């Protein structure tokens, strides 16, 4: 196994509250895996530490063999870490196209250019359109992002991350707030994107059909601790996980 991301005893407290408690795991390059756990377990906080939005108190985070624990978000993103957010994050007043194009321009290091119109940057524009097509948002390219339906905004958030051509992509509850039909579509879409963009994909999700449907490995977080890690079957049968989180109905 060739790891792309390694966490070693990552620990973080807010005041007296330990939100991440000695979490260690390692993620295989090219894999697709999930993190599950009850509300407030520290899942999002873990993403925040991996992406340099928060600094861990202790422990180490290694990305492609390089220690990124203390690097800034900007530096971590530049190394190929992408992220979409639990609370959908995009640029509401810009067009759908420009939301993704700005990411493509950033990837090409073109955001300092001042005298040419964005549409003249054909590389970035083409790339943005191809991402929109992959997401099925191309018909809405000229709409302002705030006009989109919630589900499409979640996809747009992912699209912005894809515009940076990340090696690894973190998705924080990609199907939250969606209807069951949308969930199914999104689940298939995530799997498609994973293959199409050669990503290592790590996602947080509460929807168990999505988790057990597409993850190769599932990790369970509870009160900041890594409670269990294993294949979907192992996790489904793990008695600790059942009492802590899954309950009876999944069986």
């Amino acid at each position, binding site marked *: 196994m060739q790891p792309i991301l390694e966490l070693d005893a990552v620990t973080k407290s807010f005041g007296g509250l330990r939100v991440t408690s000695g979490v260690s795991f390692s993620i295989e390059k090219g894999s697709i895996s999930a993190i599950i756990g009850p509300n407030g377990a520290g899942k999002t906080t873990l993403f925040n530490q991996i*992406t340099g*939005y928060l600094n861990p108190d202790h422990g180490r985070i290694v990305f492609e063999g390089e220690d990124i624990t203390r690097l800034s978000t*900007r530096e971590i993103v530049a190394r190929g870490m992408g992220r979409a957010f639990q609370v959908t994050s995009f640029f509401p007043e*810009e067009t759908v196209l420009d939301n993704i194009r700005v*990411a493509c321009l*950033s990837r090409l290091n073109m955001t300092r250019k*001042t005298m040419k*119109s964005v549409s003249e*940057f054909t590389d970035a524009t083409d790339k943005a359109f191809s991402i929109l097509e992959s997401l099925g948002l191309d018909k809405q390219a000229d709409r302002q992002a705030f006009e989109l339906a919630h589900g499409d905004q979640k996809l747009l958030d992912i699209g912005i991350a894809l515009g940076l051509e990340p090696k690894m992509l973190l998705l924080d509850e990609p199907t939250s707030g969606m209807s069951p039909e949308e969930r199914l579509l999104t689940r298939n879409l995530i799997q498609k994107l994973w293959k199409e963009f050669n990503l290592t994909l790590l996602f947080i999700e509460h929807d168990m059909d999505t988790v057990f449907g597409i993850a190769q490995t599932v990790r369970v977080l509870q009160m900041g601790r890594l409670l269990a890690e294993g294949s979907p079957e192992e996790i489904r049968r793990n008695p600790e996980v059942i009492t802590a989180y899954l309950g009876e109905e999944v069986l």
Partner: protein
Amino acid sequence: MKHRHRIKEVGFWALFFLVFGLIPVFAKSEYHLVLANHILIWGMFAMAFNMLFGVTGMLSFGQALYYGLGAYWVGLMVKTFGEAWFLPAIGFGVLSAVLLSMLIGLLVIRVSGVYFTVLTLAFGQLAWQITFKWYHFTGGDDGIQGIMAPGILGNHIVYYCFTLLLVAVSIWILRRLVNSPLGLTLRCIRQNPDRVRFLGRRVRRNQLRIYVISSSFAALAGGLMSGVNNSIHPDMFYWTTSGEVILMGVIGGIGQFFGPFIGAAVIIIIQDVVGARTEYWSLIIGLVMMTMVLLLPRGLVGEIQAFMARFKSGAGNRG
């Protein structure tokens, strides 16, 4: 959508050159030429200010600092070395605004929101105090009179055409800037700075860039203005100058590229019309402004645009 953009743009430029090109032909007196010149220069100043506020979301209350700086470079150099230095002084003013805004920018962009606003205000007032108190060098409260542009530029019509040209070029540059990748990045910073960090971009660095750009156009406006009025005054540094430029933006519409220019025109014309009739003009202007801000929160251009959009979608529904 793109099409509509194009029409608006062509419309602005056609109207701009039609109105301001014909003013020297039809102006009944030199006074009208001066008025038109004020609209041009304040309009450009307000548009440059809006790169900070409307585009990037940074409400600077201290752009008067750079406006005054540009004016005093011209005033002091012409007074000390003669009118031949008029044009170079405009250049030096812009250059020193670049340097000073980089320095001050490094300090003020460290804070955001209202703290940024207050800090910029403080620096502006500091510059005003210095200019006001340093009588021997700046002329203090008296300001500097008799600033003449050299040679043919001394002719009012020629000088008007000179400002018209420089203002048009400035607006064109700002327009390119807004449509460029930097412009897009700046708008994204206003809407969602955290996400911009996740694009691998430095928010503060880009805020500094636009602070420097906007301030250098403010200095150009100040330099040009000294040749219109032939005199300058420490009030060019005063907070009311910064406030006026904010007001122009808000009245015209900060969400619109051309809005602040229209706002400048409206305010200057109101000041002129009302000021000529009553000594309570500042009270009346205040009331007019208040009414406009309350009734037309998107600014003149913004409201017109919203009205057209509503009209259009209404027609679409019926058809």
